[in-house]
């Protein structure tokens, strides 16, 4: 009799723990969805219609260098290396990341703003991986 009672108690505690775990995972998922929704909204507001179309269709965004008309930065839609393309050829890759984890769409916004407003600091900060 006592054994059944203890088993029942353990079962209830296990069910409560599982319920709590499920709720925590679901809550994190909802927050992740909301963060991505907001990030996409910001991305759409800073890109032109053509830029947004290119990003969705090709999976990257080309940002012309403000200092060199023959150079473009190829920013991936998902987090990854930024390509530096000169005269149609990939000259090197850049790695730059925020200290805080942010949604993919926000990464694209960050690269765009930094390249367009302060390219020199952007290049100084990024780690450069040159193709041999």
């Amino acid at each position, binding site marked *: 009799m006592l054994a059944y009672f203890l088993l029942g108690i353990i079962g209830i505690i296990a069910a409560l723990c599982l319920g709590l775990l499920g709720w925590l995972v679901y809550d994190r998922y909802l927050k992740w969805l*909301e*963060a991505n929704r907001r*990030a996409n909204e*910001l991305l759409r507001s800073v890109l032109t219609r053509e830029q947004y179309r290119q990003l969705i269709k090709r999976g990257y965004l080309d940002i012309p260098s403000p200092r060199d008309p023959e150079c473009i930065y190829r920013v991936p839609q998902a987090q990854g290396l930024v390509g530096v393309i000169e005269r149609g050829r990939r000259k090197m890759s850049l790695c730059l*990341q925020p200290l805080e984890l942010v*949604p993919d769409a*926000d990464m694209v916004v960050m690269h765009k703003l930094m390249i367009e*407003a302060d390219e020199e600091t952007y290049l100084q900060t990024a*780690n450069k991986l040159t193709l041999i």
Partner: protein
Amino acid sequence: MGMLRVISKRGDDRVNWNEQDALAGDAEANAAIREAERIFAHERARGATAFRVEAGKPVERLEQFDPQAEQIILVPRVVGG
């Protein structure tokens, strides 16, 4: 209307203000500007970079909070990966 957007893991946190109302002496509008200014200073101190982003104008780096800006975006501190 001005808007401060702070990029974070939550997407972005926003603070809005109305400069016209603040100039007219509206206490709430003034409080919103002070709050935006406080967040701006706090994030800058943590290494964030600020950009003025306005439709039809080139993006511009901002060192000081500007209540006249249409939109300010704060990007968290970045490092070479």
